[in-house]
């Protein structure tokens, strides 16, 4: 099983793809994102880790503008995120998003879930979209489920479909917000395997996860968030073996203990 995009390299090319510049966001009085500066290069895999409520989901959602920001700027491939309307919809098509709770369209079959975007947004013709969708479903290992509805699949299968649905748009970057934390333990690895293949194939990925195994095998960098700010950034090995900040030491102590 390989998800390698043609011609992609597994090494980050060093060219900035997603750039967050002095980003601040408040929910009322709550300062959820504090002066975030983060650059993700093309082909890079960044794992975002941090305690609950530290703003990881908000960060992810801000990148495809499911949440607005109050200060600073976010740009994708050199272009600032559009405010609204058609341009915003187009931006979202370039950014794949995988949610913790899968969010497959409940009234559509697995195949229709994957072809909806290509047909309605990319205006591909149906036959071609279906051929591509079937190939993607085969690659994530759920090809034989194409005619079923989401509720008939296991959580792990649904999440792999969700990944295929995002990939069908040929996104420039994929965002994952705790993609395995709603899964039973025995299903986690089937989803992580797909993600590792994607990473090896050169996909640019921002992954919120506490799966250290994934971070160590696939990530180029770990970003540790605490209280809405980036508290530490490092390579996975350095971060997990030698955390510098007290917050990170404390946090790792907690997640490693069990």
């Amino acid at each position, binding site marked *: 099983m390989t998800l390698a995009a043609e011609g992609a390299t597994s090494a980050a090319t060093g060219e900035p793809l997603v750039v967050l510049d002095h980003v601040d966001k408040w929910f009322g009085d709550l300062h959820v994102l504090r002066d975030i500066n983060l650059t993700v290069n093309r082909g890079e895999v960044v794992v975002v880790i941090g305690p609950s409520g530290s703003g990881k989901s908000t960060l992810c959602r801000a990148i495809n503008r499911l949440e607005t920001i109050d200060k600073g700027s976010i740009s994708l491939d050199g272009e600032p995120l559009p405010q609204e309307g058609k341009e915003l919809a187009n931006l979202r098509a370039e950014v794949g998003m995988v949610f913790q709770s899968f969010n497959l369209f409940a009234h559509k079959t697995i195949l229709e879930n994957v072809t*909806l975007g290509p047909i309605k947004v990319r205006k591909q013709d149906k036959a071609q979209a279906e051929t591509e969708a079937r190939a993607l479903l085969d690659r994530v290992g759920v090809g034989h489920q194409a005619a079923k509805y989401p509720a008939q699949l296991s959580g792990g299968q649904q999440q792999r479909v969700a990944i295929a649905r995002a990939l069908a748009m040929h996104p420039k970057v994929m965002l994952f917000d705790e993609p395995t934390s709603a899964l039973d333990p025995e299903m986690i690895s089937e989803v992580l395997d797909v993600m590792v293949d994607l990473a090896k194939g050169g996909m640019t990925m921002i992954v919120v996860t506490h799966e250290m195994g994934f971070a160590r095998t696939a990530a180029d960098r770990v970003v540790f968030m605490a209280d809405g700010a980036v508290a530490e950034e490092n390579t996975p090995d350095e971060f997990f073996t030698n955390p510098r900040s007290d917050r990170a030491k404390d946090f790792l102590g907690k997640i490693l203990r069990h």
Partner: protein
Amino acid sequence: MNAVLDDLDAYLQAFGYTLALFVISGLLSLVLGTVLVAMRVGPVAVLRAAATTYVTTVRNTPLVIVFAFFAFFAPIINIRFTWLDVHIGRFDFTELFGAAVASLSLYTCTFVCEALRAGVNAVPLGQAEAARAIGLPFGGVMTNVVLPQAFRAALPPLASVQIALIKNTSVAAVFGVAEAVAQMRTFTNSFASQRLGIFIAFAIGYIVLVEVVSFAAARAERRWRIA
């Protein structure tokens, strides 16, 4: 009841008008109600306010007053249905019928809107977010993802709204449409001694229509049940 059996033609013709009022107003109310709900949950503040005002106003107005508006006031401000002049077999669809359809659909669509709004609220937020995340604009999110699920969730209240509409078509009698209740009055005026039988005959007619709608709704519910 013999009065009705002896003139079954008049009875059936009257229910033909009832059926026509129901089907046309029903479809229009579904379309208008869908537009209203899209406005109410949409991103444009002006449209949201307009739809909310319309729904609260019309929904709280007795249907007879909506009819009175189209019968008496609308012509004054030059809203007329004189352009309507369709004759199919023994059925004539003219000005009065047009005004009745307008009243019924503009009234019923507010209830359709509210039933659908409950349906929209029953669709998990993640569905719309996932739809936005693949790049669908608001209209696409609504038509492809949210509304189809909202319709399913709202099917039982929508059926109730349509059943209420069947019965509300009888108000058109007051304004001269020769539908079932108008014909019932003609019968009872001529055959006063058979009043009870005549009432029963017309009640049966309505029950049949209502049952057909209930049956269709139940079937749709079963077919659309999300696996």
